[in-house]
């Protein structure tokens, strides 16, 4: 009847909608495949997983702040948390999935970016007023540092596997506090933990506000606020965790 209708009927053989006969198609997961393989889908998932991980940071920091309240409060909190082992297992599985997705997409997008320009300019200058080479150019590197720190942190305090640390068994009423202070009393781990959380702050200073853009939220009404919130969030998280590293081992000796 008209060009639009003709285009519609032609579209049956269009490569973009051609039916795949594999497992992905039989399960109706074509959209999911596209989500994880297209540039925009990848950044969307990157942003969503990043923001959910920010949620975890808030909960984790809030719990850890009890270290300043006292040994008893922190131990009670930790034991109450661990008593919910069924829920905790689900939460941990969810966190692992978020981390794996975020890390996989970091590699996928970075490799794509490196392939998009193989030769470099002799001279390069920003046109963004006041921009210095900031966090947004170092997301993969800062993310890698944070990943290294998270792995060390899991070995130290989730699995209690670090050699040379005098751990108490998890069932011991005083274990959470004792083990935390034991790990943080080691000068080398204090330095590594301090660097880890500061680099985490750098990562968040771009990641938090950038995630909103990636999921499609950018509007003159609220984007200035999100940008400021992103910086504040990064500072609160970095300073919050760093304060534990700096003050806690000395406070309760």
């Amino acid at each position, binding site marked *: 009847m008209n060009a639009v209708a003709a285009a519609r009927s032609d579209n049956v053989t269009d490569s973009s909608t051609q039916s795949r006969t594999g497992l992905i198609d039989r399960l109706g997961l074509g959209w999911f495949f596209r989500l994880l393989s297209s540039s925009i889908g990848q950044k969307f998932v990157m942003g969503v997983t990043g923001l959910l991980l920010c949620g975890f940071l808030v909960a984790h920091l809030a719990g850890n702040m009890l270290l300043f309240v006292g040994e008893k409060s922190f131990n009670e909190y930790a034991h109450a948390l661990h008593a919910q082992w069924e829920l905790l297992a689900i939460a941990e599985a969810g966190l692992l999935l978020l981390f794996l997705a975020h890390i996989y997409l970091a590699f996928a997008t970075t490799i794509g970016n490196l392939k998009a320009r193989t030769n470099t300019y002799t001279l390069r200058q920003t*046109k963004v007023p006041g921009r210095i080479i900031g966090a947004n150019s170092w997301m993969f590197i800062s993310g890698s540092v944070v990943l290294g720190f998270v792995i060390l942190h899991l070995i130290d305090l989730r699995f209690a596997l670090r050699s040379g640390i005098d751990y108490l068994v998890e069932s011991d009423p005083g274990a959470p506090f004792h083990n935390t202070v034991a790990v943080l009393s080691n000068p080398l781990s204090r330095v590594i933990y301090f660097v880890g959380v500061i680099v985490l702050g750098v990562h968040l200073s771009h990641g938090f506000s950038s995630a909103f853009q990636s999921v499609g939220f950018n509007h003159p009404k609220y984007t200035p606020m999100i940008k400021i919130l992103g910086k504040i969030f990064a500072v609160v998280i970095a300073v919050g965790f760093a304060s534990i590293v700096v003050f806690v081992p000395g406070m309760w000796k």
Partner: protein
Amino acid sequence: MNHASSTNLNLTLKIWRQAGPQQVGGLKTYEVEGISTDMSFLEMLDVLNQQLIAKGEEPVAFDHDCREGICGTCGVVINGQAHGPDRGTTTCQLHMRRFQNGDTIVIEPWLAKAFPIVRDLVVDRSAFDRIIQSGGYVSVNTGNAPEANTTLVPHHVQQDAMRAAACIGCGACVASCKNASAMLFVSAKVSHLASIPQGQSERSRRVLNMVATMDAEHFGNCTNTGECEAACPAKIELTNIAKLNREYMTALMYSKE
């Protein structure tokens, strides 16, 4: 040109010379003298080329057409900045009064895997054409013009669409992006056509196909540094990329495409 306010500049130019797509290129140094500050950047290159021709050397190849900032044909990286130091300006509209006597100017072509170098400062931007061919259009009935008030578009909507439609497809966004991403270009066309009634029938298919072509042409991803927006001579805004992201996710999750 002996305008009262104009002065003459002596400049050192370091220009990327490359004989062909497969050849190895490199920066070559040239001296130009007596360049009027009233000249445009491309006129300065014309002067250089005239010198080269007189000496029997091969002139520098560069793209240019309208020379009034509306066609999107010209574009080189000047001292590390796409289209040079001014905002909202194409290379042809950059004037030599922005430079000082004795300056050294480094001139390089757009660098991106998707924009292979043809010769010297000329790159092949047909990847942009293929992106547009995959969805950057509207299908309409031809024949008599429809009655003027059949399709009503509110003024503010028309203004939004027009701002996005201002893209001239020069490729400065790709050239200035650290990831050689074409998001700003694709987002301008997607936002433009998604804003107006004429674009609705192909809205979902358009964004899915254009993004698929963009990915297949090996453009990079968006890291939200804002360099593209700063380099864009048509002042296309970063909010268009957020709109592209929304359009893409909406099409992916809710359309039948």
